[in-house]
């Protein structure tokens, strides 16, 4: 049954939405493939893992950045990965693919569509990432000063240290754990995974070794910052009727989205409390984080070590919660896909490792300006009732 037919029977407003397929590309510091080829491979693989064909997708939404790729309307070229003929229903956000997921999720909740394909992609190696991100800052007061992303992140890290909420050792501990996790993640940037695999001795000794490194922007050292990364990620969504059919007929394990919300804060870094993430906390509350069992795995888009500490605090994650078992953004940071990869990793924890409730976080803008929280569950909200 195609949702192109108005009033397709069985489509109820607000039907729960599940992740039924996903795929993440290998992550590299310089991909030889074009961006659309990266997209083609993850779209094909995500569809295969969902049991749905290209022509069974009712809505497509992608996240990417023309500034990153250096061309006008490059997101249109990326549609070549989808097979957009005859014409399809499609949208694009100039944001991380996690925000494309948000748009597709809303669309499935309120529209006629039952299935959606979401993808995010970026080749950060193509342009000068630091300069590109400087240009996304306020064009009057910040960009003319050359406020590069590393400097802005370092101002936030210093604020956290000055407030007594973290030490440089705490930052190094986050980095050390991320590198060790990267060593077991086949999709991590190879250089980070190799660094994690090469770490010898206990965690304390490794932290000592990391703290001996020079600052790149004090108090941040190279291991506190993400690798320049090329990569792509795709997710397939379905409403409950389709998801349960795929489960029954094809053995697909649906992972249910039980909450998804995002909030934004003032852009000027000096006009908010950099030691907290109010928008993350609000997004978590709005996504119903407190309304279910404990979150067992949290995948956080902490691009710099100190951000993980701020986000843990803002979300009030329990000590039992495993944070960034994939290595997180310190292991691979495919700009415009990093947040969507977190969603996939959080879904993977349920579908492949038996977790019951997990969380994914995405961020945008300098110093955690805008934040999205997605809560995933092995059971839909209907089943929970």
């Amino acid at each position, binding site marked *: 049954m195609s949702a192109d037919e108005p009033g397709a029977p069985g489509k109820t407003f607000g039907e729960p939405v599940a992740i039924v397929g996903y795929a993440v590309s290998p992550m590299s510091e310089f991909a030889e493939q074009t961006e659309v080829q990266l997209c083609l491979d993850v779209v094909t693989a995500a569809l295969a893992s969902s049991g749905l064909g290209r022509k069974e997708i009712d809505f497509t939404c992608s996240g990417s950045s023309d500034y990153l790729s250096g061309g006008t309307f490059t997101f249109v070229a990326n549609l070549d990965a989808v097979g957009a003929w005859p014409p399809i229903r499609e949208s694009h956000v100039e944001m991380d693919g996690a925000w494309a997921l948000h748009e597709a999720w809303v669309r499935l909740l309120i529209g006629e569509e039952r299935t959606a394909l979401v993808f995010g992609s970026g080749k950060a190696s193509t*342009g000068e990432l630091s300069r590109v991100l400087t240009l996304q800052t306020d064009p009057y007061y910040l960009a003319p000063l050359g406020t590069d992303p590393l400097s802005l992140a370092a101002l936030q890290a210093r604020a956290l240290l000055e407030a007594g909420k973290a030490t440089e050792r705490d930052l190094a501990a986050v980095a050390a754990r991320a590198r060790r996790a990267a060593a077991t993640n086949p999709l991590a940037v190879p250089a980070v995974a190799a660094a994690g695999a090469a770490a010898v001795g206990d965690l304390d000794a490794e932290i000592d070794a990391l703290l001996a490194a020079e600052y790149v922007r004090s108090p941040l050292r190279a291991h506190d910052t993400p690798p320049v990364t090329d990569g792509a990620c795709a997710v397939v969504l379905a409403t409950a009727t389709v998801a349960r059919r795929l489960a029954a007929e094809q053995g697909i394990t649906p992972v249910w989205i039980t909450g998804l919300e995002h909030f934004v804060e003032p852009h000027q870094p*000096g006009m908010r409390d950099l030691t907290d993430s109010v928008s993350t906390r609000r997004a978590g509350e709005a996504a119903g984080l407190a309304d279910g069992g404990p979150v067992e795995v949290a995948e956080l888009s902490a691009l710099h070590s100190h951000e993980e500490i701020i986000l843990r605090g803002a979300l009030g994650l329990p000590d039992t919660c495993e944070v960034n078992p994939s290595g997180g953004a310190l292991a691979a940071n495919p700009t415009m896909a990093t947040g969507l990869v977190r969603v996939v990793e959080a879904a993977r924890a349920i579908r492949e490792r038996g977790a019951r409730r997990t969380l994914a976080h995405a961020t945008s803008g300098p110093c955690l300006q805008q934040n999205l929280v997605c809560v995933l569950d092995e059971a839909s909200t209907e089943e929970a009732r």
Partner: protein
Amino acid sequence: MPVSAETKYGPSVTTNTVEFPYRRSLGPVVGGFVAALARGQITGVRSTGVRGGGRVLCPPLEYDPDTGAATDGELVDVGPEGTVRSWTWVAAPDARHPLDRPFAFALIQLDGADTAMVHAVDAGGEDALRAGLRVTARFRAQPKGRTDDLAYFVPEGTETTDPDVVDAAAAAAGAAAAGVSTEPVQTMEFWSSLTYKEAVSPATARYARSMLAGTLLGQKCPTCAKVFVPPRDFCSIDGIRLDEGHDLALPDRGVITNFTIVTPVPYPGQKETEPFVRVSVLLDDVEALMGLQPVVDIPNEEVRVGMRVEAVWLPESERNAEEFGNRGWGSTTGAISGWRATGEPDLPVERYIDRVF
């Protein structure tokens, strides 16, 4: 990273620089802030409304970012002294940074302001920085009507040796003597330049080689039978991968199925000055369409749909592959100078009705 890529991949990396000359309207608040800088004065603005009402925002904005309420628009004097709240050290500045010597970026709360602004501190060395450090502003000695007329800050009590900047008192005296305007500055220019590098894809490399040898190259999808120019190693209709085995040499004759006449507007880097034509060419014998092609020796007013054309190849010695990037929608620049009329009778529209692009 581009640098390592260049050594790793040798000449098969394409480079492309994109530049935007922005001219931004400043409005009364930012424009007023900039105008005051010429007098050695930093300003903030008072927010209104219940929540956060009455606090002084610096840098000044049109609205209070906490509430969305409009600020009162009255600029109030703050600084020039202030206190460092957070900082980081830029040991190796690059061209976009405000100083060419090591400096600090800092969050500075100016005296009289309730918020902090990001700015640079010329402190000599990292050891001089700490939260709570008192700093004072330095202004451009020859103001340009830009936000960066506020040049940077220095620790209080520092002697200034940089001849390009002055302290607040000297800037005020200079402005009074010169009769500097107090009207808000209207616009500010900002030149953006970004360079992109990427590996030339195998499909693009094959296309470039073929074009240099004088043969148009396409790729045929075994599923839908469509022919794409240039090859891209996938079919955008079926979403499947293709490879060299699907490459197809194409005829260099065809029919114009669509055209447009572009009247150039002047912008930096614009090479065309007179109206010019771009045509879509459907090649003979195959279902391959090439868009945005130039014409040779056809007056603009004579270009029409249905006109039979053939490629005009550059002499082999003059051909180059500089324009063949991964994103080409069938660019022939560097191998073909354009398409000229063959003089054969026009082809009726029924033959190519769905092939107009």
